């Protein structure tokens, strides 16, 4: 029974990682850059929930406001910091992204201070099936993550905007020849990634109800790891990588002897997977046909 609880917890945590990883992977696929400020959007979302939940007392209003704020922050960062660097060396873009990450953390520290802010949205209770005890927030997180991922997959496959995103990620020039406004598609991608990060912020608060300026740092790195394990640029890859990492983390945490090494083990798995399959599990090597 213990193992089932562990796996459900793992799937739930994996769902969060997958949602964040989707932001990394979609932006990488379309803008060909690693947005290291992405993790800090989670933190911004958590602070926005803190502010609006305390203001209105209503969790749904708080999360909607948080999504709007995260979208504004994410799209503004792209417009102000990354867009002027399009065509610049990848290193310059990378450094800028890391700079944006520190800027967001410092801004949060200036505005909210470095002491943790508590966001108590109430106890969601526990579900018991036989001898199986599962925290309800775990189930809610898992169900929401699955709904979001299914919706996103359908969006990318079956809508014009989704197809345009795939087209831009494959060949920007050819996409333009279809009449696709590449800048608009990049903005939409940042908007989607940022709203997923806001949701991830909510799920972190359900798990542990406090927020600090560096809240997004570790989840950001973990989700980035998940994206790379799955194959960066691949949407299903981010989902597979996210769930895989979540389950591994929960299983390792459940083993008393090795649980202190959980982070080391996860990153070691990343290294092994990259050695065996440099493109990640579902990453593809692009073939050119002439």
């Amino acid at each position, binding site marked *: 029974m213990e193992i089932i609880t562990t796996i459900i917890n793992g799937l739930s945590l994996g769902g969060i990682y997958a949602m964040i990883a989707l932001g990394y992977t979609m932006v990488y696929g379309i803008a060909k850059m690693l947005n290291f400020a992405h993790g800090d959007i989670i933190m911004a979302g958590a602070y926005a929930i803190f502010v609006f939940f305390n203001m209105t007392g209503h969790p749904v209003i708080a999360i909607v406001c948080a999504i709007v704020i995260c979208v504004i922050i994410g799209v503004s960062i792209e417009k102000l910091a990354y867009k002027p660097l399009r065509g610049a060396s990848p290193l310059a873009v990378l450094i800028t992204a890391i700079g944006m990450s520190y800027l967001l953390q410092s801004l949060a520290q200036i505005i909210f201070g470095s002491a943790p802010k508590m966001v108590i949205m109430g106890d969601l209770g526990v579900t018991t099936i036989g001898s199986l005890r599962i925290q309800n927030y775990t189930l809610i997180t898992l169900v929401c993550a699955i709904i979001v991922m299914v919706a996103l997959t359908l969006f990318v496959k079956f809508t*014009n905007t989704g*197809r345009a995103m795939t087209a831009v990620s494959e060949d920007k020039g*050819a996409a*333009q*020849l*279809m009449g696709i406004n590449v800048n608009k598609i990049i903005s939409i991608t940042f908007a989607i990634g940022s709203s997923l990060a806001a949701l991830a912020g909510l799920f972190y608060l359900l798990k542990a109800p406090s927020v600090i300026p560096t809240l997004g740092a570790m989840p950001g790195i973990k989700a980035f790891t998940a994206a790379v394990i799955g194959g960066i640029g691949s949407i299903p890859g981010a989902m597979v990588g996210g769930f895989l990492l979540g389950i591994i983390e929960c299983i390792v945490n459940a083993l008393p002897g090795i649980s202190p090494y959980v982070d080391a083990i996860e990153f070691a798995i990343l290294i092994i997977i990259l050695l065996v399959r440099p493109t990640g599990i579902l990453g593809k090597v692009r*073939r050119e*046909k*002439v």
Partner: protein
Amino acid sequence: MALLEVKDLQVFYGVIQALKGISFEVNEGEIVTLIGANGAGKTTTMQTIMGLLRGQGGTITYKGHDITRTPGHKIVKMGMTQVPEGRRIFQELSVYDNLVLGAFLQKDKKKIKDDIENVFDQFPILGERRNQIAGTLSGGEQQMLAMSRALMARPELLMLDEPSMGLSPLLVNQVFDIIKDMNSKGITILLVEQNAEKALKIADRAYVLANGEITHQGTGAELAGSEEIKKAYLGG
């Protein structure tokens, strides 16, 4: 007034000048071809017209509008598009999705459906493979798809960049037949080709590009008959 008018176009790659002030025009209903050797600047010309590259001098006018600094996606909206060199179909998407993307700016769902059916009528092989990933098509099929995809935008002016490249002689003939057919349906054509002989045969007018400059111009027949052109581009 010409449909497309290029005046004194200059394009640099760093310090290297790829186009040294070329001027030409395409009138409505014509097939105009731009021939020249590798590296003459043909693709550069095409990409600059489509807004994928920026020129450092000169003007490009389409239907009387200055489009020199217009981004590519807006040019498509104005009724001009391009089948790029190397086809550049979306390899990860299905044949059907490639065609739907070609109609990205079309709003009428019924028309898009009809256009796709027309493509499948004209190229049954694409119809058979509508759900297949485009990257798995053969070179010839990919060229048919690339041309069909461009037609989905219902362009008035279509530019084709080396459509016969890498195809077997039989397919090359088919490609040129398709181009003539598109033109007879009212689409103005600007064709860039290394296969000068075939291009000159179907062209109303032609320009010869060498080292970033236009060295000759005339009707297709005139250039095909010129001894100098024969020697340089038609293999004797």
